[in-house]
């Protein structure tokens, strides 16, 4: 057989080095080509990660057993000998950018698996990569200055089970640098400055929300094939909104990143919520931020903490019934005065068990109280204005005749936080002896101090102060001044202040998932036979047809009624058949219909996971369901 010259560029020789010419025959297999190539370079190094990339055809020659002939490589081919793993700048859900090595030769689905293995993120099938929003040139110079976390030195391990070392996977424990990366991954970042939120892109309409889908990469093709170059930036996001087997014990990174993605979705109004919900989200963010900051300390001196709280509760026991002070009480049976001192009368109040008793004066306190209020089951709300030195507790106490509104006006912050904490506990049927009392008092005090400092210049979250504007979306930043916002968030905060960090994150995710629009990915489509563009929403259990003009749901189809679906690649049309001979077909207006296919198939794939007990991911099934024939 005739020998001919094959032109191969070896990247490792430098950008200016001329391509190498090696003499080959058509029946030489790829492995043989590589061997010859390596011999000719005269470089001694580990070549095991290198492979041949055929630039004109945009494909890898990975099957070393195939001959050149079988691969279709002829003398005109320009091959590049290059490593399969290259550094990539990865935008994480929390907004940080991480530089790490990723596989450029395997299908994106597997590349994501590899990335997630390094990041210690379970269930990589729920995530995928997307191209970043195209940035304006101006911003580019800024990019260079942004803080970059670097994990490129960390080797990609093959094993799936990660040994923990020092509370983190062993490969993070190598150096302080990598430890810092793990902290960034597993601990939620401080709240951003309100201006930063306002500057970021927010989808203004449902049509805007469809644009994200033009950016997802094809899971069945490699990064190189999709034109991604070394050191390019890609976003890593949770793509399928169905989170399997979430376990705080193993999912520190996953939970944190999911929380961050949810938080940004809310801050950037990617998902709509009501004012009440926003306040709760704000309160939870504040709480999570605070808990994250103190997390290190807590873990290091857990024992001390326990002891301290034990001592404290002992102290309370010795003191006995805890609080009893002079206080202004307003019983608003005659609701005439508003928020003034009018209508308040001073009484000696005593907190006992779950009741407040009040007396005419301190001297009368051993006699019969004027009134005793049992707070069990009541609603407690703060009515506070630090600047105005108003510290009121509003109590709504249920009674057979309705609710009794009582206002307790405290003299100062300290008194307020003690009584507020006690009221909060009592409403749940707990007494002052409960171990959570002290921390509750602390929480309230911290939050009040936040209000004091909120008038200062906007800063990002520090230990004591935070601008409440950074906890809500720009819409509410515009609607309320921090002064107005703080009491609202404080009110919501009362109900969640006792949560641990993990439970607070879980709670945040839970409320997020309970939003009506949660988990719907929007696509601009044109239904067969229709003349106008419509929006198709894809959720984890159903497809929704939305009328663009009205914004209303026109029709819902559930996957459980789905018989089959297929894509006509020639006319790029998705056709779906449901039970009862219902057939729909549509083409995608802006996104590729492969993305729609991947979404529908992906959700069906996700739903098979519960039944599959094994931990290994069935890649083949995923590609089959998502039309990824190239990867098979």
């Amino acid at each position: 057989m005739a020998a001919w010259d094959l032109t191969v560029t070896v990247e490792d020789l430098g950008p200016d080095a001329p391509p190498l010419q090696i003499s080959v025959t058509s029946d030489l297999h790829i492995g043989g080509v590589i061997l010859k190539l390596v011999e000719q370079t005269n470089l001694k190094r580990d070549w095991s990660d290198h492979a041949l990339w055929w630039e004109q055809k945009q494909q890898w020659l990975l099957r070393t057993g195939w001959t050149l002939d079988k691969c279709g490589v002829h003398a005109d081919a320009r091959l590049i000998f290059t490593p399969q793993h290259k550094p990539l700048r990865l935008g994480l859900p929390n907004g940080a950018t991480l530089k790490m090595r990723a596989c450029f030769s395997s299908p994106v689905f597997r590349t994501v698996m590899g990335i997630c293995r390094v990041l210690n993120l379970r269930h990589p099938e729920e995530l995928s990569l997307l191209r970043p929003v195209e940035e304006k040139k101006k911003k580019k110079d800024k990019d260079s200055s942004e803080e970059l976390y670097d994990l490129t030195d960390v080797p990609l391990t093959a094993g799936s089970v990660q040994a923990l070392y020092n509370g983190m996977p062993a490969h993070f424990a190598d150096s302080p640098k990598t430890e810092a990366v793990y902290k960034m991954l597993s601990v939620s970042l401080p709240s951003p400055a309100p201006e930063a939120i306002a500057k970021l892109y927010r989808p203004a309409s449902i049509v805007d929300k469809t644009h994200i889908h033009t950016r997802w990469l094809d899971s069945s093709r490699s990064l190189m094939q999709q034109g991604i170059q070394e050191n390019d930036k890609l976003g890593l996001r949770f793509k399928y909104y169905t989170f399997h087997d979430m376990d705080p014990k193993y999912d520190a990174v996953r939970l944190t990143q999911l929380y961050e993605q949810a938080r940004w979705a809310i801050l950037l109004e990617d998902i709509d919520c009501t004012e009440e919900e926003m306040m709760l989200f704000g309160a939870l963010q504040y709480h999570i931020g605070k808990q994250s900051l103190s997390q290190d300390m807590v873990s290091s001196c857990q024992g001390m903490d326990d002891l301290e709280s034990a001592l404290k509760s002992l102290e309370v026991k010795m003191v006995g019934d805890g609080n009893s002070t002079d206080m202004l009480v307003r019983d608003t049976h005659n609701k005439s005065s508003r928020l003034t001192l009018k209508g308040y009368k001073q009484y000696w109040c005593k907190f006992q068990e779950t009741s407040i008793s009040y007396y005419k004066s301190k001297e009368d306190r051993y006699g019969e109280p004027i009134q005793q209020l049992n707070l069990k089951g009541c609603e407690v709300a703060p009515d506070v204005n630090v600047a105005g030195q108003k510290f009121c507790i509003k109590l709504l106490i249920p009674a057979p005749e309705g609710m009794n509104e009582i206002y307790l006006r405290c003299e100062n912050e300290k008194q307020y936080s003690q009584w507020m904490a006690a009221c909060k506990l009592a409403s749940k049927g707990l007494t002052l002896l409960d171990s959570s009392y002290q921390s509750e008092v602390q929480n309230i005090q911290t939050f009040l101090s936040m209000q004091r400092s909120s008038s200062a210049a906007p800063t990002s979250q520090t230990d004591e102060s935070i601008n409440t504007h950074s906890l809500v979306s720009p819409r509410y930043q515009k609607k309320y001044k921090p002064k107005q916002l703080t009491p609202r968030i404080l009110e919501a905060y009362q109900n969640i202040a006792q949560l641990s960090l993990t439970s607070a994150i879980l709670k945040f995710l839970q409320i997020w998932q309970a939003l009506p629009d949660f988990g719907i990915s929007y696509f601009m489509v044109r239904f067969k036979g229709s003349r106008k563009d419509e929006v198709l929403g894809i959720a984890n259990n159903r497809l929704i047809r939305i009328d663009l003009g009205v914004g209303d749901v026109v029709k819902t189809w559930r996957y459980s009624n789905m018989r089959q679906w297929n894509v006509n690649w020639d006319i790029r049309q998705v056709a779906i058949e449901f039970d009862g001979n219902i057939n729909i077909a549509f083409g995608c207006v802006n996104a590729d219909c492969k993305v729609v296919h991947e979404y529908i198939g992906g959700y069906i794939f996700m739903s098979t996971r519960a039944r599959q007990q094994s931990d290994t991911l069935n890649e083949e099934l995923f590609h089959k369901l998502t039309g990824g024939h190239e990867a098979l």
Partner: protein
Amino acid sequence: MEQFSDDELDHAAEEDSDKEDQDLDKMFGAWLGELDKLTKSLDDGRPEKVKKAPLRQESNMANMAYRFSVYNINEALNQGDAVDLDALMADLCSIEQELSTISKPSSASSHLGLTGDAKVRQKPPAGRSHSTKVGSSNSRPPLASNFSMDDITAQLEKASQSMDEAARQTPYSSSTMRRPTSHHHHHRTGSVGTVTEHEVRSFVHSSRSSINSASASSMDSLDIEKPKSDTDGLQDGQDQPSSEEEQAAKQKAEKIRVALEKIKEAQVKKLVIRVHLSDESSKTVMVDERQTVRQVLDSLLDKSHCGYSLDWSLVEIISELQMERIFEDHENLVENLLNWTRDSTNRLMFIERIEKYALFKNPQNYLLGRKETCEMADRNKEALLEECFCGSSISVPEMEGVLWLKDDGKKSWKKRYFLLRASGIYYVPKGKAKASRDLVCFLQLDHVNVYLGQDYRSKYKAPTDYCMVLKHPQIQKKSQYIKYLCCDDVRTLHQWVNGIRIAKYGKLLYLNYQEAMRRTEAAHDWSSLSSSSIKSGSSSSSLPESQSNHSSQSDSGVSETTSSGHVRSQSVVSSIFSEAWKRGSQADEPKVTIEELYFSNLN
């Protein structure tokens, strides 16, 4: 525990030996004082104090517990023959037994605390006597042989009457009421033994707390049996020869421990309540404050032999407000009943309600779209339920639409567009689109329960009869804090009610259902085929559209007539259901689904 029960049997047998030595009575009292002090110190360090006279604000809180049960026992006793004391007693015994197995955890600490106490050692006879006495209540077989059933019943009646009397003697101010009734609570009268124990309780109470004169007088009336019982117990204590000092001390400690347990148990609140049945009859049952609705239902089902079905419910009927609610299985019954006022005319019904679990029998009609009713294969139903209730968060069904809202204090109703979200009920303000950000929060669901309104067309001039009410469970009288909503049809009403239940309870609701299913299936295995009513809700077949005029059911406490298949029918929803239920459970007739009911009544 076995060890003790053996002991107890012994003592119980010995009980009737001597009948002298009055001095011991005193000693006994003194010992109880000691014991009480110890209990206090052990009782998680919280100083036990008598509550001051309750006030206006508190009228249906903790203190009501006592009032309430008095009310009930009065009612029960006034019924005369109707009271099923035997059944009540059986109840008491079973509770007793239950208790003896439950309250173990505290024992270890009591044990340690007590053995080291010199004062206790000084009073061995009293210590023995108390515990043996208590023990006797646990040992039913020997008792049964000693006393005839009639004897016990008579004594029980006597005790109850004396309480009743006490209750009537004292004016209905809560401060005085509290004492006598508290006796009642500790009154686990199932046998002579427990009657005595209840005396012991009262004694302990008196030594513990500063009782005012009124309560003391009421105690007198209760003390009728005291001499007898006390001596009974004490003598047998005397009889026990303590051979080895060590063993005696050990035994003593054990006994004290048992005694302490008993005291703890005795602090468990119990209510004697009357449960009304659909056939106008009623049962009197005793409910422990720890029991869930499911547990109470189970025991009622066990006793009533009415056939097991998922649909058996405990329904709270607030007649004054003309509303009702099916208690959820996980709820605590006593806690709920304590919300009733003393003079309440509320009733608790034990009745089959198909709407209780209709949500799970035909989830497709509640969880999916809102307009059309459809059939679904069982497999798909399961998948749907799984999807809705077993995910990482609750998916509240998308409920939205125009409802009528009653104006505060007026008999006028205005239309509003309402939406249900996990975080509460919202409405769209005038002139706005229904974007989430513009919604106004109408109510958050943490503190309110959802009730069905009864016949509000005449009461409040409601536009239809399909009304739901949202209120705090403690509110029992007309109030601006009660919100009334009216739906256009029964289907919408039930979708909303179930939506709210899901938003409120989430997965718990599904767990309740699964638990109920398990019970039903287990019972079904045992019971004969005659109680085959289980599947009535889930099976389906076509039913003639027009409904016959079934006579009204009095289950709801309000009698109505169902006019046939008309939207504007006067019937109360619940009676439609119960009627349907009747039809469904009749062996040969085709069975009905709840949805067919909707439509049979709507068309």
